């Protein structure tokens, strides 16, 4: 990664040449690149992700796996869960009633939201609900400077701040799940066993969910797994708009200040999460589809 980190430190005229050399030596920046890499891995195994440049001296792990991670997980987790559920239900119903006004309306609404830039939607919601209607705060995870009386007060304030970004993200995400579910359902509905279920005279809702959706949900699981990185990586843009102290805004901060240890740490955590998510998805898939089991 380009951009000599020492250049930033050097920019500070108060650091003498001596100190600079010492810092370089401490950080091991004077050793050859491959050696630096090995040292990194060694520290990694010890669980030490290095020390941040920007938050001078703070261990990277503490920065990433601390409050910021929780914030992002809460935001992205809730938004993803909500959008998956909404996308699933609306997708199933839309496919069942293909071609009707309901279906077309659902399609158009989801496409419109899917095409909306998340940051813009966030800005608009901030404008309308925050600036004009004074319903929601204009940013941050909790109100600054407010002393919280007890835990519930804290949670309430937190939730108050959470609503806008969560709704923004849900609206932008649900379209993808809706379309995927709808397509999958349409394919499933052409299968023979749906005819059998109808012939048995079973009620519509049962066929729709227990027979069709149960089979059509499989690609949706794959899709959620693929988007797993998003849950951890956070939506950089949305977090920035709402000043939500999460991994997304951290990433942006790190990029802007060329804080490479933090960036490396974030990508590492993301990679691990992706592997884990895929693993879980495989297990889930085997549970849902008996044909895959061994």
């Amino acid at each position, binding site marked *: 990664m380009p951009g000599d980190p020492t250049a930033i430190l050097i920019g500070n005229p108060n650091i003498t040449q001596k100190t600079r050399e010492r810092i370089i030596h401490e950080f091991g920046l004077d050793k050859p690149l491959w050696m630096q890499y090995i040292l990194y891995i060694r520290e990694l195994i010890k669980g030490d992700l290095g020390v941040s440049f920007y938050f001078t001296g703070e261990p990277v792990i503490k920065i990433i796996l601390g409050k910021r991670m929780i914030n992002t997980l809460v935001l992205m987790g809730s938004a993803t869960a909500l959008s998956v559920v909404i996308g699933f239900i609306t997708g199933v119903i839309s496919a069942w009633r293909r071609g009707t006004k309901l279906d077309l309306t659902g399609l158009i609404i989801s*496409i419109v939201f899917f095409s909306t830039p998340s940051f813009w939607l966030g800005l608009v919601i901030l404008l309308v609900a925050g600036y004009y209607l004074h319903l929601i705060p204009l940013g941050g995870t909790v109100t600054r400077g407010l002393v919280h009386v007890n835990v519930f007060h804290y949670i309430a304030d937190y939730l108050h701040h959470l609503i806008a970004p969560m709704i923004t993200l849900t609206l932008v995400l649900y379209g993808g799940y809706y379309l995927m579910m709808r397509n999958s359902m349409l394919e499933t509905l052409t299968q023979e066993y749906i005819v059998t279920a109808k012939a048995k005279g079973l009620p519509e809702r049962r066929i729709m969910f227990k027979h069709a959706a149960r089979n059509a949900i499989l690609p949706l699981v794959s899709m959620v797994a693929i988007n797993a990185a998003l849950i951890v*990586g956070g939506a950089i843009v949305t977090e920035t708009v709402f000043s939500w102290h999460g991994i997304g805004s951290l990433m942006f901060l790190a990029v802007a200040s060329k804080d490479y240890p933090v960036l490396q740490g974030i990508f590492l955590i993301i990679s691990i999460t992706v592997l884990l998510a895929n693993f879980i998805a495989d297990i889930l898939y085997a549970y849902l589809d008996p044909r895959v089991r061994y």
Partner: protein
Amino acid sequence: MKKKAERLVTFKGKTGFAVRVKRTWSEFRRNKIGVLGLFISLFFVVIAVFAPIIAPYSPSDIYVGAPLSPPSKEFPFGTDELGRCILSLIIYGSRISMSVGVIAALINISIGTIVGLICGYYRNILSDALMRVTDAFIMMPSLALMVVLAAILGPNIYTIILAIGITTWPTTARTVMSQVLSLKERQYVEAVRAAGGSDFYIIFHCILLNVLPIVFTNMILSIATAVLYEAGLSFLGLGDPTRISWGIILYYANTSGAIISGAWWYVIPPGICIILLVVAFTFVSHGLDEVLNPRLRRR
């Protein structure tokens, strides 16, 4: 023997091409959503091409009006913090927004299709390696990668195009690959191979021409997502500040405190344009999808 197989395949492939395009178009014409999308996209293309003629002011005309003033008869979309006419900015902005979208999508599709073809058709070290790379990148959060890339490479319009193109090709590659895999097993491919057709012949005549519909549909959709990504990157400040795009307009809107001062005319119009353009392209690709991949057997 080879001649007979050739005729079989060419009929499906080359000579049929012009006919197929015509037939696709006449079917597409009937799809209301697709046609609507097409109209809107063409509208924006016209605006972009004829921007200097249509726009009342040029982006360099600063302080032609009071800064951050709401919409009025003279300035239908109000003015920005430098006193520029926002309507003109938006009209000019369409050029960058759309061209970045199209070019990035082209990069995406070219790399993606080639990789997809190789991975789907061949079973060698190269294809395996490419597949691993593709899979690895599919999982990564594209926006994060783009941000890092764009930040490293500098605020330049070409960096943005490159960043988007490079981070989005894996998804295309995966789609193309699965299509190629299923096409490869078709019987007429076996027939051509038995008749002695070379690999290149098969790829070109049997497979490539049959993945083109999917690639084309994907291309349109890629343009849509590329426009969205460009807006996002520009909004974060990674765009080229010397140019105007809808995303950059929103960046300035944000940094100049439009939210805090309630300058809604600065924020809403560019966003609506982005939405309209992306929706238009999505509609077109949806219409194409319905025509090229009919969902058989409505029950």
